[in-house]
């Protein structure tokens, strides 16, 4: 379909001059961002809180584990020391008598045999005098020896039954300690045993926390007493600063586990417990890498979950946003195309939701726009020869009405008198002004009477009644139209004559069958009627005088009851073999329009001589 609408530049030049600005933030991005955030934020919060709680639980668990291990180690050490004290108790069960040293000596030797940690033992009687000294290494001394009543160990054991001496280091390497045990009665004396604490190693080495965690024991000065790696103990006090720091760091945490740097320089989680009877500190520690491994795994899991979730969310958000925005974009594009006149554009959306429905509605709208546009184009075409309201009527009823058909019509011809002579004399602009006024006036009358104006031809005009729209009593309608037309043109004639233009107007009407329909090519299509009735009307118009309306017998017969008619007698019409009864609309019916003419001194109702004169012009 060729149409001026196909040229948007012409039709809507503002499209180019002021293009619709793209929105700054697209719907896609908005949807994408919202959906993404809606998924990721709860996921992230969930993972974080989960990781946090797991972390807290595991931290508490770790704390408890280290505490338990430290307690267990302290307990074992206490048991070890208590065991030695108990064994020493065996040698202070018999009271000392004069010169009865040997049984005591044998007891002491058996004690050494029984308890490997005891290096030597000194037996003191109730007076505080040394009575026997038995050693694994040094020479034994039997019999009364030095008085040890003032010895710390003796005093301590007397005061509290069991006395623990400080840890001393032989040759600055091996840790030793004195344990003094008093018998139940003063007469049983006191046993002072020298203990090699290296043997606690057997106790401490078996304590394992996880795979690499361990426990060790330090004294108040920070000096190592027992450690799974015995060589650290034997190395002397070189590490005591480190252990002291460790001890005070843990002590500062008030019983809970702390993360700190170990003696070996690696990061550890450590807890400590004090062994009450000997006053040592047991530290249980586990490398952070191992202790926090599960926490680390938890955090990684949480992170991985968030990452995977974010990726999924992004994919989902992309898909959804695309699904939402793409149809909208298509619709927008469609609207733009339709706006640009591309009415055959259709939007294809199969989302199965409201958007699809919207697209269908859009397509329907585009369809209706197309139909409506075609219709308006046709109406515009019809309006060229039909009164607008008739055109609408034709459009609304049936277009086939315009197709060629035979029907009874009333043809009305009007023609200016003396126009040829006038046009020969007058200037072109004057001629065009006259014609313009004439056409305007005739057109207005035809429109008012809802008749069909098939066209102007120079100074002539042809009007049809009852085609294409059928009318009741077309003859009367045609005559009334002719009277109005004559009256309207006559008022022009008055003004023209005042300007010195001697122009008149005559009308002829005939009724009869004719072929009506559209004819033409491409854009130039006209509606017209073909038939003798048209010729007859034209001939009658040609014979009509200025101001006269001539009727054929059929019309005259049809309107005689309504309008006064003057028979003019039989006349021979060109192209007809027999003369026809020709009538004219009586002057009384034209009075109104003729009153002005009379004032101007112009002839009314056409004198016979004038008729003859004017005849010549055809």
């Amino acid at each position: 379909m060729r149409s001026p609408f196909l040229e948007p530049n012409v039709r809507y030049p503002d499209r180019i001059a002021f293009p619709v600005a793209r929105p700054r933030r697209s719907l896609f991005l908005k949807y994408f961002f919202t959906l993404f955030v809606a998924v990721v934020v709860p996921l992230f919060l969930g993972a974080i809180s989960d990781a946090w709680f797991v972390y807290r639980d595991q931290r508490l668990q770790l704390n408890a584990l280290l505490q338990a291990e430290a307690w267990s180690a302290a307990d074992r050490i206490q048991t070890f020391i208590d065991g030695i004290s108990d064994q020493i108790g065996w040698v202070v069960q018999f009271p000392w008598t004069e010169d009865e040293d040997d049984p005591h000596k044998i007891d002491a030797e058996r004690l050494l045999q029984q308890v490997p940690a005891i290096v030597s033992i000194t037996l003191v009687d109730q007076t505080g005098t040394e009575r026997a000294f038995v050693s694994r290494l040094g020479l034994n001394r039997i019999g009364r020896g030095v008085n040890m009543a003032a010895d710390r160990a003796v005093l301590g054991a007397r005061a509290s039954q069991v006395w623990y001496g400080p840890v001393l280091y032989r040759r600055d390497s091996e840790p030793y300690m004195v344990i003094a045990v008093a018998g139940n009665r003063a007469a049983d004396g006191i046993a002072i045993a020298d203990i090699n604490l290296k043997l606690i190693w057997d106790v401490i080495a078996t304590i394992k926390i996880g795979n690499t965690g361990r426990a060790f024991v330090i004294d108040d000065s920070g000096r190592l007493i027992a450690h799974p790696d015995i060589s650290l103990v034997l190395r002397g006090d070189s590490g005591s600063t480190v252990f002291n720091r460790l001890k005070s760091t843990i002590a500062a945490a008030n019983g809970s586990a702390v993360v700190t740097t170990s003696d070996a320089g690696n990061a550890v989680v450590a807890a400590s417990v004090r062994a009450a009877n000997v006053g040592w500190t047991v530290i249980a520690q586990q490398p952070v890498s191992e202790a926090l491994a599960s926490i680390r795994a938890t955090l990684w899991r949480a992170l991985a979950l968030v990452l995977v979730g974010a990726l999924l969310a992004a994919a989902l958000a992309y898909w959804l946003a695309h699904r939402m925005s793409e149809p909208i974009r298509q619709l927008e594009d469609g609207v733009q195309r339709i706006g640009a006149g591309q009415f055959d554009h259709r939007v294809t959306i199969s989302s199965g939701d409201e958007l699809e429905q919207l697209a269908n509605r859009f397509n329907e709208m585009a369809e209706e726009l197309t139909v409506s546009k075609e219709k308006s184009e046709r109406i515009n075409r019809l309006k060229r020869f039909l009164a607008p309201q008739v055109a609408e009527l034709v459009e609304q009823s049936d277009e086939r009405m315009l197709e060629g058909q035979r029907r009874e019509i009333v043809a009305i011809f009007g023609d200016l008198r003396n126009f040829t002579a006038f046009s020969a004399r007058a200037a072109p602009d004057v001629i065009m002004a006259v014609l313009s006024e004439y056409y305007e006036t005739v057109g207005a009358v035809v429109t008012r009477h809802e008749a069909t104006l098939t066209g102007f031809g120079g100074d002539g005009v042809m009007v049809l009644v009852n085609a294409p729209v059928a009318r009741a009593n077309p003859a009367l309608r045609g005559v009334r139209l002719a009277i109005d037309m004559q009256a309207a043109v006559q008022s022009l004639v008055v003004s023209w004559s005042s300007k010195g233009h001697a122009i008149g107007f005559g009308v002829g009407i005939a009724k009869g069958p004719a072929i009506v329909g559209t004819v033409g090519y491409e854009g130039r299509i006209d509606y017209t009627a073909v038939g003798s009735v048209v010729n007859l009307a034209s001939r009658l118009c040609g014979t009509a005088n200025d101001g006269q309306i001539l009727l054929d017998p059929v019309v005259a017969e049809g309107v005689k009851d309504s309008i006064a008619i003057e028979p003019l007698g039989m006349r021979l019409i060109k192209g007809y073999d027999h003369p026809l009864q020709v009538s004219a609309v009586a002057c009384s019916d034209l009075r109104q329009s003729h009153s002005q003419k009379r004032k101007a001194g112009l002839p009314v109702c056409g004198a016979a001589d004038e008729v003859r004169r004017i005849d010549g012009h055809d």
Partner: protein
Amino acid sequence: MISPFLRASLALVWVQMRRRDFIALAGGAMTWPRVARAQQPTKVYRIFWVSTEFQPDPFLDGFREGLRERGYVEGKNVVFELHYAAGDPNALRQVISDLKGGNIDLAVSSGPATRAMMAVTDVPVLFALSGDPVELGIVKSIGQPGGNFTGSSFLSLELAGKRVELLKDIFPKLRTLAVISNTNHPGEQSEWRTTRQAAQALGMDPVYVPFFGAREIDKAVEVAGNAHADAMLVFPDAVTMVHRTKLAEFAIAQRLPSMFGWSEYCDAGGLLSYGANQRATYFWLATYADRILHGEKPANLPVERPTKFELAVNLKTARALGVERAISSILFRANKVIE
């Protein structure tokens, strides 16, 4: 409510996560260790064994056993180069120069061989010494040796008096004590001095039977036989160890109760011995060998001193000597009884 513990541990967790897991995440960790392993074939450690004993060597067996316990397989990741100079430390000079030139990871020396090893300064040396290593000058202190030497000291010196006392406990009427001693042994004079003082304190008369090296041992035995002693004390030492059977048989022949330093002498027929378990000590020495082979410095490994001393009694010999009654009084103290 974020505690310092939490902050510190979170920071550490983060650091650790960054350090290793990012590598793991990047996929590098999957291939990296494999490459490292491929590039580093199993190292075969070479251990130099220097001894003045002779084979079969129970101490070497103890050491080997200790290494096996630690996962070493001879011929696969450890090889021994054995150098024996039975009873003659001077014969080790050539061995020492070999050691200096060779690509040796660790040297182990026992007893008198250690003195010859003092020239070695660039190879870690493990020793098992009866004397005092500080006195000998191979370590700065027991706790921190400070050089390329570390190992174990058997406390022979401290036990010297104890051996005399044990004899006196069992045989209270003991008067004359023959003391057989190899003068070619570090700390021998100290040992003799301690022994003499103990014997005199216990009312005994010690007869010093010195000899120099393996060549003079027969002469020493002869001298001891002429001493009219009530008992015989033999200092533990490579030469007497090598000739322990000869010495034990001599004591039985002379009807002398004999006291030695290590239980190996009792196995060979000696009546009594008191001292640290040598084999156990060498077994333990393997743990130090393991640590040194893994890169630890001998300077930081304290010299270990045995805590367990065993009293061994050979009842067969006791019966041969007819001293079962006397011996039975100390059986409750015996750690090892040979029937």
